[in-house]
């Protein structure tokens, strides 16, 4: 049973999941998970690639049928009838999937019509949202001609055109430019401040740390921990993390390093850098000597403030950098994870 922390609101859970399970042939994608998301909460759903995040979102939103378990959205049992609560949900999938031949304004109006919005109200809302996501000037340009960041922003606007009570966001900022990602984070934070419940999956841990109140970790289809951000980070506050900048790729030295320093976890990060984590005192001098003996210069050593990233690495055992690269490569290849 994973450790849990109660959702922010007890009045009525926006999302309630009990014993949710899904198999694809021999693969157990989601293995009987339980969690609750409170009304108005910003809930993060994190895990390595292929852990079952997208499958869970698909089951919650009605794109996939659970093999077992109960799903309640705002108290409505959607286990057998996934359509029952779709009017309350907004969904931003991991791909920007609007209609390329329609322009930005038409796409939003069409999405509003899918939720039964009358013409005047959907046009008014579309204009407001185009302003909100910074696409007012591109409103009459075809979606197919938008940049990746613009497509993502319009996809988010399409997900909230009908003012949903719960917004599901699957990797909303993956593979887009920094400015667009910042803009999207601001829009999402504002939505949550306005009372919308947010269910977010992301592999940008710093994004989850900045936005989420509570986080669930899923690994190989199982929920291993659900807790508030404060509790999660408290657990790793005593850990020491040092990032070393080396003159070369540390991959080949990982084996000898782990043998020499059994109490320390090593994780290669972007470039020729290496992170060392430990719950005890970090023996910096022997570590530097280890590299010097192998002719490797340690050009920089930075003490890193323990963050959610350490929690993620501890809980999932997955190096974030590798996961991020895999995800971005998968997006470039047009794959779905």
């Amino acid at each position, binding site marked *: 049973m994973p450790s849990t922390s109660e959702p922010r609101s007890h009045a009525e859970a926006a999302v309630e999941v009990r014993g949710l399970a899904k198999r*694809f042939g021999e693969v157990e994608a989601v293995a009987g998970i339980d969690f609750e998301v409170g009304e108005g909460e910003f809930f993060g759903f994190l895990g390595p690639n292929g852990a079952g995040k997208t499958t869970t979102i698909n089951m919650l*939103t*009605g*794109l*996939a*049928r659970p093999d077992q378990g109960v799903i309640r959205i705002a108290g409505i049992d959607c286990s057998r009838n*996934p*359509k029952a609560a*779709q*009017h309350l*949900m907004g*969904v931003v*999938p991991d*791909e920007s*999937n*609007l*209609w*390329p*031949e*329609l322009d930005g304004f038409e796409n939003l109006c*069409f*999405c509003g*019509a*899918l*939720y*039964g*919005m*009358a013409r005047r109200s959907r046009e008014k809302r579309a204009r407001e949202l185009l302003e909100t996501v910074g696409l007012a000037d591109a409103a009459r340009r075809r979606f197919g001609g938008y940049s990746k960041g613009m497509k993502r922003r319009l996809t988010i606007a*399409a997900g909230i055109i009908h003012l949903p009570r719960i917004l599901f966001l699957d990797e909303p900022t993956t593979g887009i430019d920094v400015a667009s990602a910042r803009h999207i984070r601001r829009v999402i934070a504002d939505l949550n401040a306005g009372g919308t419940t947010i269910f977010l999956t992301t592999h940008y841990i710093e994004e989850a740390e900045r936005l989420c109140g509570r986080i669930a970790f899923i690994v190989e289809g199982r929920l291993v921990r659900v807790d508030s951000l404060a509790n999660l980070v408290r657990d790793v506050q005593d850990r020491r993390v040092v990032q070393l900048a080396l003159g070369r790729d540390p991959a080949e030295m990982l084996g000898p390093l782990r043998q020499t320093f059994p109490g320390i976890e090593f994780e290669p990060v972007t470039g020729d850098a290496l992170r060392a984590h430990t719950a005890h005192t970090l023996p910096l001098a022997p570590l530097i000597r280890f590299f010097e003996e192998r002719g490797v210069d340690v050009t920089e050593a930075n003490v890193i403030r323990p963050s959610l990233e350490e929690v993620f690495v501890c809980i999932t055992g997955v190096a974030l950098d590798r996961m991020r690269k895999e995800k971005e490569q998968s997006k470039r290849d047009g794959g779905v994870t």
Partner: protein
Amino acid sequence: MKTWIAVWNILKKDMRTYYLKPPNLSWGIIFPLAWTSMFFIKSGSGFGDIRAILPGVVALSILFGTTSMLAVTVTFEKKGRSFERLLLAPLPLEALMLAKTAGAIVMGVANAFVPMLMAAFFVDLSSVIWWQIAAAVALIAVSSTFLGLFIAVSVREVFEAQTFSNFFRFPMVFLCGLFFPIANLPVFLRPLSYALPLTYGADVLHGSVNGTAQRPVSLNLVLLAGFCVVLFLISLRNVRKKWIT
């Protein structure tokens, strides 16, 4: 939830973005012209033969117009994942699939009247039973569109939709009695003819244009309507099974 708003807007969008595009419109005119010319060249006869080949050209215009267009547009939206947005909308699946097929049905009916209109310039069509033509055209358009839906659910790629459509269409053309009487077919092929919806549509068209129907009109129309219902239900079941996994 006002379902009609969603259904109407899906139909409107599909008409605008797919069916009323110039290549489709020109296809609707060129296709009947090409078939008519082909049969004239083959038979070597004059305008008098137009009535004989009219039911065939009408039926083919509907069949080819509806099946390929629907299969291609749905497969295209599935591939680009925009179809997911439709599945996420709080719209009954039946209403969604009817909305997606409505555009192809409308185009099928419109395509059917192109050869009728062309024929009216050359031969006297005053003896044609129009209500039977209208009923047959509507039901052939619906059944062919649902066949296109069945194809769309079965394939992943746009090119597969095209080739798989032909797998059904060409045998149908030659087995349904439009151009060769079913009685002239080898005995082992005849049961297959009676399993095709177009056979019954073709019979109504022959009857209404030339007075040569093999079965009562009401029986043909009931059977054709039955095919429409069955094809729609099979497609719905397949959509639930394959697209909501």
